[in-house]
């Protein structure tokens, strides 16, 4: 074993990138099975009462729903490969267009929430783990459990009922109507992501307006994963604090603070990175509820609308895009992990 040296990092990354293809294939297949095979006929479900039988059949034929399943499956895979996710029934837009118009709002919301959760959750988790079973630990853990246990819409309800009014904060929309109007009128919607656009515009009024609208939803969503972060970081700290190498470092007389920072905290955060990547999935789920609660014009709210319209094509398209996003994020997390942890060789 004397000669066993690290496998090469580029090779690992290449392998990992190649692995994305089968993963996407599996997930697409699952989406297809669940949304296309299980429910039967999407056209009559969506448009049942609205069109006559003949028209329905024409729509079916046009959309390929009369083809054999294997043909539909192939069509689905090839159209996804061409980044064509279909056209919605209910408002007759391409799914890609829907995502462009509403995805930005979801992205702003999730990023802000993620930032809040990171900035609050990780330090609190570190403190709780380092000072196990002391008062700060107990307090932080209770906070963590409560913030996870409180449903988003309940937190939203409480914030709207007791916080929004006294502070004069808006309870809906990703920015005031005026801001949205002027941003579009003046052609300032460069990225189609309102939060970025207001910053790019450099206009402090717009920025303030957008941030005000963002505050409550982001805090609501951020609290949810904040609890998860606290728990995760704390458990990992507990484990590394007990590890043999921490004791060995102490036996070498390395200063306590340094041992904690360099050996315990650092090593504890490596597995956390993996899980933080997974939390992004939780965040996307939570975003649906947050958007409904605060009437936030994001993709999640759009998804719920399509579900209520029983618009299968739209649901399938949006779900497919979410799925691909998740696979890509897990790829990113694995690569970051390999860069940090030398033991990840294969």
């Amino acid at each position, binding site marked *: 074993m004397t000669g066993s040296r690290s496998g090469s990092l580029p090779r690992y990354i290449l392998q990992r990138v190649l692995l994305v293809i089968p993963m996407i294939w599996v997930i697409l297949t699952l989406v297809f099975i669940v949304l296309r095979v299980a429910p039967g006929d999407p056209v009559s479900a969506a448009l049942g009462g609205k069109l006559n039988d003949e028209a329905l059949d024409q729509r079916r034929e046009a959309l390929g729903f009369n083809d054999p399943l294997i043909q539909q499956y192939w069509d689905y895979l090839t159209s996804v490969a061409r980044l064509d996710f279909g056209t919605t029934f209910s408002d007759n837009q391409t799914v890609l267009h829907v995502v462009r118009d509403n995805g930005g709002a979801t992205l702003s919301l999730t990023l802000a929430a993620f930032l809040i959760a990171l900035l609050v959750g990780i330090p609190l988790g570190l403190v709780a783990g380092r000072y196990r079973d002391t008062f700060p630990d107990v307090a932080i853990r209770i906070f963590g459990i409560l913030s996870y246990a409180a449903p988003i819409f309940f937190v939203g309800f409480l914030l709207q009922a007791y916080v929004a009014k006294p502070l004069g904060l808006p309870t809906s929309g990703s920015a005031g109507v005026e801001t949205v109007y002027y941003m579009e009128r003046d052609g300032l919607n460069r990225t189609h992501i309102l939060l970025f656009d207001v910053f790019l515009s450099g206009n402090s009024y717009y920025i303030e307006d957008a941030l005000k609208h963002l505050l409550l939803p982001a805090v609501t969503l951020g609290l949810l994963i904040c609890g998860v972060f606290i728990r995760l970081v704390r458990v990992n700290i507990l484990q590394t604090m007990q590890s043999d190498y921490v004791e*060995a470092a102490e*036996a070498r007389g390395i200063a306590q603070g340094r041992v904690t920072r360099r050996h315990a905290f650092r090593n504890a955060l490596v597995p956390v990175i993996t899980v933080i990547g997974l939390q992004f999935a939780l965040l996307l789920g939570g975003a649906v509820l947050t958007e409904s609660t605060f009437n936030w014009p994001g993709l999640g709210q759009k998804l719920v609308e399509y579900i209520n319209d029983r618009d299968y094509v739209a649901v399938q398209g949006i779900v497919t895009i979410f799925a691909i996003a998740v696979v890509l994020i897990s790829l990113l997390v694995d690569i970051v992990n390999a860069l940090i942890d*030398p*033991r990840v060789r294969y």
Partner: protein
Amino acid sequence: MSFATSNEPTLEPSSEPVISARDVRVWYGTTRGAIRAVDGVSFDIAPGETLGLVGESGCGKSTLGRGLMGLLPPGAKRDGEVWYDGKDVLSMRAKDSYRLRGTDLGMIFQEPLTRLNPLLRISAHFEETIKQHEPGLSKQQVRQRALDALRQMGIPPTRYRSYPHEFSGGMRQRLMIALALVLQPAFIVADEPTTALDVLVEAQIVQILNDLRRNFRTSLLLITHNVGIVAEACDRVAVMYAGRIVEEGRVSDVFENPQHPYTRELLRSTISLRTTGLNFIPGSPPDLVDPPDGCRFHPRCPDAMAVCATRNPINIERPTGGRVECWQVGPRDQIPSGGTRPLKQEELAVADEA
């Protein structure tokens, strides 16, 4: 660094002991009561000397080693005195005794892989250790020191920037030893340093430990359950049983002429190349929450006398040097009348075996 003087060995061979433990006790609190893992242990180690500490598992030898280093789990309590460089390590402020670690007191562990931080290169381990204690050194000097220590352990400088998992078991143990030696502490505790290793690698490590005292003038407390290793690498041996050192002296002396029945039986039950018949000690070591009265070995002792079950044996000088705790050796005049008749023992069944 107030203790930097230890880097240059100035003591003469016949001088003061480096470490001098007096009546050290380490107890653990549990729901059943206190476990008396170490219960009144005294010994001295001279500069450059290796003391082997042997005993069955659970006799408190590891606890003693960690107790000296102050590496005890929560819930443990220690008392007694451990004199080092004119100061009692046990009664020092925690901060001061912590400062002794690495520069003056070092430790080598059993499982080297888990003792190295998997995310840090070997170089980082050395740099942080040296920098901690000698912050004035330049980067180049630190590197020099580290490479020197590695070289002496037979690790090529080409491996300096490797990660711990890239080394083999024996190399990792050499790394640990190099890491413990890099600041040239006066005293090192080695806790079963070869247990997880193969026979040939074990022999290599024993050889390294054996060379330590010559090349570094480091005193060593070598904790092991292998009497063979003691015979090969130690000057003196302390035999531990149920939290106490029952016999102690020069290795050749103790092994050739054991005074304590436990030492004798332990040697007899060890299977070696010269074994021609199988011997064993009946029964098992006692529960340290409630150890037997008198001599703790008396329920298993083939030579037990009436006095052994009631009175603690007295720590006396062995006939040929060293110390022993056994009524068989003496002092005769302190044994109450009738105390010398053989103790009637209950038959020890498998139910009590270790």
